[in-house]
């Protein structure tokens, strides 16, 4: 009995002292002034803005800037530049704002910016997507000439794309111009930032961005009080965050669109009537209910943009059934339609990086079953690889369709016959002409009108079916209670990120 007591006491004492020691360490660290902690599920893969999507990440992290940017209302506004004027079909003059400096103190000059952007164009194919290869030629300290490969009336929007983030190669790593500068970087995990003293209104707080690979971990860390800003909390964790008066959760509409991409190379989906029938069957309100947030959308663009169409056609299952009848697909004995002995069965893919898409799968399966289409739901970790392989029938896809505040990005990349991301494999002369017209249209009202025509043509042929404009959820501690999220995941850490 004595031995047992000793053993129990030893066990209890060890556990208690282990936890007490940790708690003591915790309290001592708490006493120190800590930076603002941002938790999110992505972080820059590297600091070189010319590589992959690092430019986007570094802008989102509040480190890098572009010549132009998109404000919270979706307008393209100057950032490092002050103006841009068109000199000819493919020639522009861009003037830089005076007095700007890189985080290492070097003045932002036309030669520095030209060198930086030329390197981006050389190394990153994403910079050539909109208007081909751009050339940047310094004219004087603050002016440079920009030559485009294809004519464009919206160079400001092009330069607001994430491929054109500006960075100067310094001896101790790249120097940027954003409100914060890099102190340390653990690839894939953490990014420690301090206020950039050369920015217009330097912040008074340091910032640390911590990456969580799992949204639930992020939610728990937020609930534990360690995170000041938890970006894009999973829907199912919201009750947990909102139940605590010390923390708030703000929900905001984003400019992403959830889309269904239909593979028109497949025999079944090559028939426009079948695609339209699918589109007419989908009840978007039911999808919104399933993912518990967002707005039904039948437009390629979110309604915050002037070219985004807010109207949503009502579900018409009778009309959809008639279209399928007309296309020769007749109801079989098991409720699934057949044609020449072939069942109307399709695969519906989603990817786990956007959990909402997986939630939408069973809803769509049940909706399509109502008109006699059998759906097999599948998941892939490599959505882009699958999309490029063409080995799918329908692929659910999340996309920011106007990242630079201009409608030309999405149709040029996803709907044009020669679009780099024409995952639907759709070739349509009318759409190609509309895309070309949009590239050349100058007046804003003219661009809006063409964007609307593109929307209408897309609804008519349904190679891509817009479903929902989602809402995202940001958890905020008391320190950041006044923070207003906007700009999707493009501008999370901003110059106005400050605590009282």
């Amino acid at each position, binding site marked *: 009995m004595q031995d047992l007591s000793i053993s129990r006491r030893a066990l209890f004492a060890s556990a208690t002292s282990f936890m007490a*020691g940790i708690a003591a360490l*915790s309290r001592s660290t708490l006493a120190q002034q800590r930076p603002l*902690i941002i938790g999110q599920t992505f972080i820059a893969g590297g600091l070189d803005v010319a590589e992959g*999507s690092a430019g986007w990440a570094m802008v989102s992290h509040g480190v890098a800037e572009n010549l132009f940017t998109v404000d919270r209302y979706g307008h393209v506004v100057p950032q490092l530049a002050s103006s841009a004027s068109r000199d000819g079909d493919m020639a522009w003059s861009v003037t830089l704002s005076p007095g700007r400096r890189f985080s290492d103190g070097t003045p932002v000059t036309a030669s520095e910016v030209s060198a930086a952007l030329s390197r981006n164009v050389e190394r990153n*194919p994403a910079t050539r997507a909109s208007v081909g290869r751009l050339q940047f030629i310094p004219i004087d300290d603050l002016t440079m000439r920009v030559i485009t490969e294809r004519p464009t009336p919206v160079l400001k929007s092009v330069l607001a794309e994430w491929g054109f983030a500006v960075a100067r190669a310094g001896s101790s790593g790249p120097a940027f111009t954003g409100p914060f500068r890099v102190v340390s970087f653990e690839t894939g995990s953490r990014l420690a930032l301090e206020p950039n003293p050369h920015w217009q209104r330097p912040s008074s707080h340091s910032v*640390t961005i911590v990456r969580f690979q799992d949204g639930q971990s992020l939610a*728990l860390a937020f609930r534990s009080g360690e995170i000041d800003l938890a970006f894009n909390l999973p829907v199912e964790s919201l009750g947990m965050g909102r139940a605590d008066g010390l923390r708030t959760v703000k929900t905001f509409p984003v400019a992403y669109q959830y889309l269904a991409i239909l593979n028109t190379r497949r025999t079944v989906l090559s028939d426009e009537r079948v695609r339209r029938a699918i589109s007419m069957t989908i009840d978007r309100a039911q999808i919104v209910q399933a993912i518990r947030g967002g707005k039904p959308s039948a437009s390629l663009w979110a309604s915050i943009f002037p070219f985004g169409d807010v109207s949503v056609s009502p579900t018409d299952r009778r009309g959809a059934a008639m279209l399928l009848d007309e296309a020769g697909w007749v109801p079989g004995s098991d409720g699934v339609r057949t044609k020449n002995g072939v069942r109307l069965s399709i695969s519906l893919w989603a990817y786990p990086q956007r959990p909402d898409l997986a939630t939408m799968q069973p809803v769509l399966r049940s909706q399509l079953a109502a008109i006699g289409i059998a759906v097999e739901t599948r998941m892939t970790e490599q959505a882009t690889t699958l999309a490029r392989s063409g080995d799918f029938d329908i692929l659910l896809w999340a996309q920011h369709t106007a990242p630079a505040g201009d409608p030309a990005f999405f149709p040029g990349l996803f709907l044009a016959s020669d679009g780099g991301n024409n995952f639907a494999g759709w070739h349509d002369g009318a759409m190609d002409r509309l895309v070309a017209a949009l590239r050349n249209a100058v007046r804003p009202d003219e661009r809006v009108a063409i964007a609307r025509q593109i929307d209408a043509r897309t609804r008519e042929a349904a190679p891509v079916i817009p479903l929902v404009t989602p809402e995202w959820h940001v958890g905020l501690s008391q320190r950041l209670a006044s923070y207003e999220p906007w700009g999707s995941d493009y501008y999370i850490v901003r110059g106005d990120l400050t605590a009282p």
Partner: protein
Amino acid sequence: METLPHAMRGRRFLEGVAFLFLVLAAAFLFVRMLPGDPVDIRLQSSMVAGDEATAAVMRSTLGLDQPLWLQFVDWIGGLSRLDGGRSLASDRPVLAELAARLPWSFAIGNGGLLLGVTFGTLLGYASCFHRHGIASAFSRMLVIASQSIPSFAVAFLVFWLVAVELQWIRPVFGSPIERIAGPILVVALFATGPFARVTFGTLVAVQSSSWFMTALAKGLSRKRAMIAHGGRSVVVANAAVLVPELGWAVGGTAVSEIVFGVSGLSAYIVEAAASRDYAVLQLYLVAIFVWLGTAHGCITALRSRIDPRPEVRR
């Protein structure tokens, strides 16, 4: 008699070199057999289709246009100069990247095992002292739970309990000890049960041995005799359990690192696997092989030292 050990040592050395070569070749071939091309994946991450010229330049820059055997030779040559190549994703030296993360994973994996062995052994003794007591029921529950509950669910539960409800630790921004405490607890929770039951079973067997009866005849109580004379058997038995638990430590460390957001190897390796970052994956596999091999060797040596009978029989 003097030449035999030297000959054996020479043979062991050659066997070691051959083993290392096989490990390197296996790691290289396994990684290169993964479906998916790193250049395609990298171009796809740029959100546009890269043209053939861009892909060719990238492939040439990364040395992926060379024959496979030449890439292997280059890699081995680099390793001999302590150069593990550069990460495709971050363009930083792989050795430096792994070295920065290794201490976290090493501390979590080994710390969890150490805690598991310690508490498992204590629990096993307590179970044996009172066969139908709380300790015995708890150790059985731990074993069943470790077989039936997914590790990520336990990791979330531990996170919620120690960081959210009890606020004992700050796993994200606390001190290094706070950051690894939760993951260590998760690894330990899964390891404790098996060690407890093996300790218990060993002590039960010990009680029927002749030398244990002798100890009792000398006047020791049953519990004192178990503490004084059962230890050696328990260490030998637990050393045998430790070998398969090493594999769990790798997996458990990965899961708990991801859930607790620790900057260890796991998150990095997941990213590397997604981007087919060959240099990172190859070196990681080699590190795991070497760690498992070294640990296995140490455990075997420990067992031989404590209980040389199997060696003598061989």
